[in-house]
């Protein structure tokens, strides 16, 4: 087993472990922290896969943005120490069953499909990404880029209207 | 003559109704509309005779094709033959009588006549359509006005009945649709599928395919014409409906089904018609006898007539199921006859109800004394129903019997005998109801104050009576009228 492999398995275990903790922890704040770890682990995985740009984006957007947002929201809505209520047992069982079945199904299908690795070069340096991002030709992503900007604008407007509210709520 | 007039005129009059608000204007427009339609249909008959006499010999007359949904091969193809003309005449007569009978309708008069007019439009459209799509279109056009007429102006458990009627008829048309789709995909004119009946009738559809789709079309249309065991909308629907709507429902709407069974199911799928004829006959016989017996137990005048309609419409199906020319002639005659007779019956029941506010046989009695005209008409309608010679019912029933007997196998003969037996049962229930409501001692003293029919009611009754007697005393013109049409259907059946 090479070092790379060991790193991969450690990363994987970390991601999945923290992921499981994140969705099972009864304390919401801890849950958020486990999520944070999991996301960082994923960023690590990206590094391991040598897609540094994505890894960076992952850290900036998720770790720096979304998790922070989530933690703020938790502060806004909750006392940190309070334990969350458990889901009804029936649903927990059903969910576990569904999830396990889904997982088995998905992975069996993936496994059966037999993805064969490709041994060509994969260039993901930042300048290639950058030029493609603004390219309007066959491999360009200028249009999605613009689209996303509209989406962000809309999301922003939406957030503002909904969250910044002045009137008191009707009972 | 342009057949489109038959659609455009009712449409114009119904739209005109929407524009006016004064009660007398509404009535005037409604009546004018009905009279104009009626004259138009009479004119149609004469034009047809004229065409015939000048030696024009074609399957359909006054044909016209208007392009519609080109992409699907759907045209608005219209034309008439004798059978359709008979049906159209029936429609206009019943509508005229219906308008006259409802002359006094005070509640939402405008809407009432609007819907009535719309109904007649649907019926005309149905009878002149030669394209299955437009036929289906007109078949369904009529559903909603019926629902509203019953639900708004009806009596008794009107909402329930209206809903039941609408749903069962809709189920009928749903089945019809499947049949039509089957025909459509099994006909190909220059590579394009077609709904055109004239084209489909020329195409040779494999027997297995016909056997698959025939039940859909037949049961679908059959529901309209009270095919056992799908007849249950008839009693409730008819008895809850306001008079004019009952007249229309029983007089015309049920005939849409019979006409469809004949024109679509039997004509276009002759092999299947032969294949299923046994079943059709059995169902028809059940409807005839069972309907008649069920009628005996009814206590409400409208229920009595409704159940007797089930029984009488059984003759239509029996005639169609027998697949002989005479029997099919009989089926068409029975459609016309039953249409007129039952409309008359409902009209009279309506008149009685309007005066006495009851339709329970047990609460009526001796009406002949207080309202001789209405009572006489009631008796005549009853006599027509039990097949008295000189009135239309006799001609139709006898023709069906004759046609049924024509088939030599014992099965057909026994079926005919069963059908014949119903005339006795019919006599029993008709006489029971006549005996206790029209004759006998006056049961309710207050009825002494009641008045006899008004001019509009008299006219309505006369209009229908003329039809009944014209058919009963001189059936030959009607038979001559429908003969070419049935001839074509028979040719198609026997050619396979």
């Amino acid at each position, binding site marked *: 087993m090479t070092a790379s492999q060991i790193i991969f398995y450690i990363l994987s275990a970390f991601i999945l472990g923290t992921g499981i903790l994140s969705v099972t922890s009864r304390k919401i704040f801890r849950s958020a922290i486990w999520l944070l770890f999991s996301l960082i682990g994923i960023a690590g995985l990206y590094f391991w896969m040598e897609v540094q740009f994505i890894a960076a984006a992952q850290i900036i957007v998720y770790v720096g943005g979304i998790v922070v947002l989530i933690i703020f929201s938790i502060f806004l809505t909750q006392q940190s120490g309070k334990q969350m209520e458990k*889901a009804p047992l029936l*649903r927990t069982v*059903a969910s576990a069953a*569904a999830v396990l*079945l*889904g997982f088995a*199904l998905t992975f069996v*299908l993936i496994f059966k499909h037999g993805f064969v690795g490709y041994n060509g070069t994969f260039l993901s340096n930042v300048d290639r990404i950058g030029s493609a991002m603004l390219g309007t030709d066959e491999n360009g992503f200028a249009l999605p880029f613009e689209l996303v900007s509209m989406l962000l604008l809309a999301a922003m407007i939406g957030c503002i209207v909904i969250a910044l509210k002045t009137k008191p709520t009707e009972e | 003559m342009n057949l489109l007039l038959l659609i455009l005129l009712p449409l114009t009059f119904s739209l005109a109704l929407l524009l006016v608000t004064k009660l007398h204007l509404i009535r005037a427009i409604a009546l004018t509309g009905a009279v104009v339609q009626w004259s138009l249909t009479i004119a149609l008959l004469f034009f047809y005779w004229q065409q015939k006499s000048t030696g024009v010999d074609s399957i359909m007359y006054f044909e016209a094709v208007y392009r519609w949904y080109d992409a699907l091969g759907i045209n608005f193809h219209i034309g008439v033959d004798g059978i359709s003309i008979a049906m159209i005449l029936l429609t206009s007569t019943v509508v005229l009588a219906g308008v006259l009978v409802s002359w006094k309708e005070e509640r939402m008069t405008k809407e009432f006549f609007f819907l009535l007019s719309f109904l007649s439009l649907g019926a005309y459209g149905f009878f002149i359509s030669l394209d299955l799509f437009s036929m289906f279109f007109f078949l369904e056009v009529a559903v909603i006005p019926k629902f509203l007429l019953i639900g708004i102006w009806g009596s008794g458990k009107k909402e329930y009945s209206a809903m039941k009627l609408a*749903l069962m008829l809709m189920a009928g048309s749903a089945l019809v649709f499947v049949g039509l789709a089957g025909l459509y995909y099994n006909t190909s004119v220059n590579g394009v599928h077609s709904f055109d009946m004239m084209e489909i009738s020329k195409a040779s559809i494999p027997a297995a395919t016909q056997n698959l789709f025939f039940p859909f079309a037949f049961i679908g249309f059959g529901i309209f014409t009270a095919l*056992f*065991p799908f007849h*249950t909308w008839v009693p409730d629907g008819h008895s809850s409906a306001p008079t004019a709507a009952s007249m229309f429902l029983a007089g015309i709407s049920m005939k849409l089904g019979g006409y469809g069974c004949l024109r679509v199911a039997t004509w276009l799928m002759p092999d299947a018609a032969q294949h299923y004829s046994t079943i059709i006959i059995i169902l028809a016989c059940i409807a005839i006898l*069972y309907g008649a*017996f*069920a009628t*005996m*137990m009814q206590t409400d005048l409208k229920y009595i007539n409704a*159940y007797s309609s089930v029984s009488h419409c059984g003759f239509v199906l029996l005639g169609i199921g027998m697949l002989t*020319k*005479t029997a099919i*002639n009989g089926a068409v005659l029975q459609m016309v006859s039953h249409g007129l007779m039952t409309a008359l019956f409902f009209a009279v029941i309506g008149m009685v109800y309007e005066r006495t506010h009851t339709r329970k046989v047990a609460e009526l009695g*001796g009406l*002949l*004394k207080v309202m*001789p005209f209405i009572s006489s008409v009631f008796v005549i309608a009853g*006599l027509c129903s*039990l*097949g*008295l*010679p*000189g009135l239309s019912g*006799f*001609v139709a029933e*006898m*023709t069906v019997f*004759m*046609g049924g*007997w*024509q088939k030599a196998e*014992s099965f057909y003969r026994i079926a*005919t*005998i069963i059908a*014949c*037996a119903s*005339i*006795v049962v019919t*006599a029993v229930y008709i*006489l*029971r109801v006549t*005996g*206790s409501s*029209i*004759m*006998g*001692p*006056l049961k309710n003293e207050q009825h002494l104050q009641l008045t006899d029919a008004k001019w509009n009611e008299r006219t309505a009754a006369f209009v229908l009576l003329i039809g009944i007697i014209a058919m009963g005393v*001189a*059936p*030959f013109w009607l*038979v001559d009228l429908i003969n070419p049409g049935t001839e074509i259907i028979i040719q198609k059946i026997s050619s396979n």
Partner: protein
Amino acid sequence: MNDSSYILLIPLLPLAAFLLLGLFGKKHFSKSAGIIATLMLFAATVLSFYTAYQYFFITGKVNDIYQPITAIKYTWLSFSDALQIDMGILLDPISVMMLVVICFVSLMVHIFSLGYMKGEERFATYYSFLGLFTFSMLGLVVASNIFQMYIFWELVGVSSFLLIGYYFQKPSAVAASKKAFIVTRFADLGFLIGILIIGFQTGSLDFTTIIQRLTDTQSSQFIIITSASFLGISFLTWALTLIFIGGAGKSAMFPLHIWLPDAMEGPTPVSALIHAATMVVAGVFLVARMFPVFSMDPTSLEIVTWVGASSAIIAAIIACTQTDIKRVLAYSTMSQIGFMMFSLGVSNYGGESGLGYSASMFHLFTHAFFKSLLFLGAGAIIHMVHSNELKDMGGLRKQMPITHLTFLIGCLAISGIPFFAGFFSKEEILLAAYNANKIVFVVALLTSGLTAFYMFRLYFSIFWNKESSKQTDAHHGEGSFSMKLPLVILAMCSIAAGYISFGQFVTSDGKLLESHFHLLFSIAPVLTALAGIGVATYLFLRENECPEKYSKQLGGFYKSALHKFYIDELYLFITKKIIFNFIAKPAAWVDKNIVDGFMNGIATSTAQISASIKNLQSGKVQNYTLYFFGGLVTITILLIYLWK
């Protein structure tokens, strides 16, 4: 139009009366309706006599044989090329005879009704119904086509219904009219099916053609109809039996006779016309009309014979016990028609052996006169006494001399006392029966004795017995001239009609049949009749205890005869109990609860399903996502693994 088109006027005149009075009578002719109708019928009667004259003496005879003549024929409704209903007029001896009888009796009844029905509220309606009946009856007898006959057959039935129910406010009248119509309709069903068989087997509905084809043993139609069989009985027998059932219903033959006594609820002149002289003999006429065909099938003739004979005796027995004068007359009518029937049954076609046929027609002819006479007489009595019951009568000979005399003539005629019309015709019938079937003869003899007995029981009870009856309506007197005139005329006919040598005109094959008058043979019948009269005289001339005593001695038999052998009850049981409770009620129940219940069940179960799955939409978004995913997995597995 040919020169015989005037015949068309005979039925059309009453029809015109019907339409005129029916449509406008109430408003415009409420008083004059009777006169108008009578005049129109008078014209028709004159025409019918003229027709008879023309036929019997001028046009009818070819080569000494009376030929059927189809005077007029129009196609009315064509079923197929061969089978069509024609409206036509067929003249042959029996139809011409019937024309005369119907017009004449009808005229008498019209005249009688002028007085009898005077002041009735629905006077015009009455006459219009009479017109309708006369029209239908005339149409029936001249029918050239079996279906035409059926049409008028039905019309006759309906006119009978309307006239029986004339007093529509009387529940008993309504019930009687219903009963009459339904029973005859039931019988007509047989007639109709018979027509269907005959029509299709012979390929024609035309009487002439049918008779021609079915009397020719070589014709293909005859071979088929006799060889083809259903349930082991040949089609011909089936057809004729069924047709006979139709006739039996109309003619009130046992066991379809139950309507006739009740039909007496109608106005008495109507009973005279319809239920004595004309309509009820339609069945006899039908068998006579088809007689050449009947004669080809001994089995059906056998049936005719026995039904006729049993009706004759049963009715006679019942008549002895009834106390309602009209009912007595009604049973007597039934009995007499039974005579006509079995007379036809024992007859053969043509020649000497065709005596029964001729006798039957002769009896029909004479019976029409004396029976309508009796009925009209009874009408006059009832008009005076206002009751039908014998107990309300007695000693009326003083108050109503003319009625008394004419009634006596009628009684003598029906009893078969020599020199009266009934004697001649009955004698021939008995002779025919004697020649053919001894048992029938004995039955007939017995019946004629009974006839004499009950007729004179009636006669004595009305006119003698108790002395004066209190309930008589003195100022009424015996009735107006218009009531007396028909009685007198008919009484004369009841004597004179017997002297017509009927065999010259009406025979089964149209050839001349010599009169067979054997003095010796007449002894037994006449003695029987006299014996009957004697017993009646002994019992009923004076009021005494004997009748009661004897009836007690007869015990159960008397009681069951009084109750008409419980046949009515049997019918009621079958219709009310069995058909109503076991067919109609279940049919209605099934319709409401099973067929309709099924349709409603679909609706309710849909609603129930709808309500039971509402928890799918629990409002919890996590459940939604769970179901979402569950559905997805299911579909995936379905698509990938299960559904290839």
